[in-house]
């Protein structure tokens, strides 16, 4: 059957078409890659990148008020601040202002009354003993290895807050939708406030941490883990816990409207 001339006639063109299809496929693939590259290059061109360095004291204060976009702050071993901003729209205006004690970047004030300016993503490298006060209306905030007096991260609407390696006397983290993660130490006499509307709050601290705690979550998802002791007072049928861990030398207030509160031993 296979050697019949009719079948041969039918199969021959099929064999011939395979290389042609391959050629078409390759062409389409190549064109696609070219298109993707062109679009990528175009979008990269439309994004603007600003990078500036500012001389700074060891305990400089950095204030940043963003509208939308991520904020990443990390410490480095230099007495200067490096600010890098990636602007989604060229319409956005950024005018950092430096005083004797602080570097102030206020995207909201700089662009007040303007139509949408898109995301502005910030990366800041600051001296390790800096104080940072960060606000954005939307977007993630990440702060790493800061040992200044204050670390404040406020996301008005949605965005995760991650604070890693923090040793500061005042820490404040608040968002409406998103997780809050704190990994650091509570300093004696310090104040620590964490609040979320809908997200999980996880606090990772050394086993020997001493603090006075007020933790409230209406859904009763409060897990104190190893830090639980019989001195804790349960209020509202387990929706709030108040008490001291060791001698309660620092004040910790945690509020979560819909998510959980978890303490983790480091």
């Amino acid at each position, binding site marked *: 059957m296979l050697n019949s001339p009719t079948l041969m006639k039918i199969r021959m063109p099929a064999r011939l078409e395979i290389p042609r299809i391959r050629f078409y496929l390759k062409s389409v693939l190549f064109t696609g890659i070219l298109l993707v590259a062109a679009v990528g290059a175009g979008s990269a061109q439309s994004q603007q990148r600003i990078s500036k360095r500012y001389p700074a004291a060891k305990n400089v204060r950095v204030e940043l008020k963003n*509208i939308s976009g991520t904020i990443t702050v990390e410490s480095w071993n230099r007495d200067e601040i490096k600010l890098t901003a990636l602007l989604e729209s060229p319409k956005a205006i950024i005018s950092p202002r430096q005083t004797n004690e602080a570097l102030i970047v206020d995207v909201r004030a700089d662009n007040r009354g303007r139509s*949408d300016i898109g995301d502005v993503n910030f990366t800041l490298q600051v001296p390790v003993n800096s104080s940072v006060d960060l606000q954005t*209306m939307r977007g993630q905030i990440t702060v790493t290895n800061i040992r200044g007096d204050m670390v404040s991260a406020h996301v*008005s609407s949605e965005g995760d807050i991650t604070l890693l390696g923090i040793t500061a006397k005042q820490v404040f983290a608040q968002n409406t939708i998103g997780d809050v993660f704190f990994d650091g130490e509570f300093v004696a006499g310090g104040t620590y406030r964490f609040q979320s*509307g*809908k997200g999980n709050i996880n606090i990772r601290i050394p086993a020997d941490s001493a603090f006075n705690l007020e933790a409230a979550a*209406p859904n009763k998802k409060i897990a104190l883990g190893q830090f639980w002791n019989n001195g804790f007072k349960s209020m*509202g049928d387990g*929706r709030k816990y108040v008490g001291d861990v060791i001698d309660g030398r620092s004040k910790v207030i945690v509020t979560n*409207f819909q998510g959980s509160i978890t303490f983790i031993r480091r």
Partner: protein
Amino acid sequence: MNCEKCQDIISDFVDGSLSREDQSLLNAHLEECLECAGVRDDLQSIIGFCQTHRGEYVAPPNEKALWQRIRNMIESGAGSVVAAPAPGKPSRISLWKNWTGRSWELSFAQLIASAAVIILVVSLSTIVGLRRYQTGESAKSNSSPVDGSLSLATADVRDRISQQQQLISFWNQRVEYNKARWSPQMRETFDRNLQVIDQAVNESLNSLSQNPHDEVSEEMLHAALNEKLSLLKEFAEL
């Protein structure tokens, strides 16, 4: 130039420290105004007298005794006269006497300003009083802007919620006014987040309606309302 300005600078004129321009202006005024010219003459004669008798002053033999005599005379005389204290001696005249003994002649402008301040204070207190009264009435008639379930909550809680709610309404209007300028993405974000907060507010209100004295629900309600207020404020200013 008027008399007020003239009398401000006349002592500089007598000292000879005025600019040429001011000097000519002042001269022109003094030629026209007899009263100011009189002031100038008085000043010049005082200065002249002082210059002539410079160095002739001799201190009294017993200065302390003299001051004591002056004080005794003043105290035994008219009580309304306020004497200057002797150097190095603290004043014995009470603050009250000082206050009542002061001359209270007010200028026309001061009188107007005082009347305006009194009217402002009275109007403000009336408005605040009326508002408080109306708020109380509206809460009583179960027309609370938050929720009907508040009728079970305590009056104090109701008051505070009502105040917060008024602020929220104000900022809500501002947000609605500005919303059209936002990107669709921003609008969605705002609505989504407001929904989350409203859910927290409603849950707290439900708890409070079941147990009006539940402190935790009360705390959560206030925290949620503050959060809402903060969200509205920030987006209103966008």
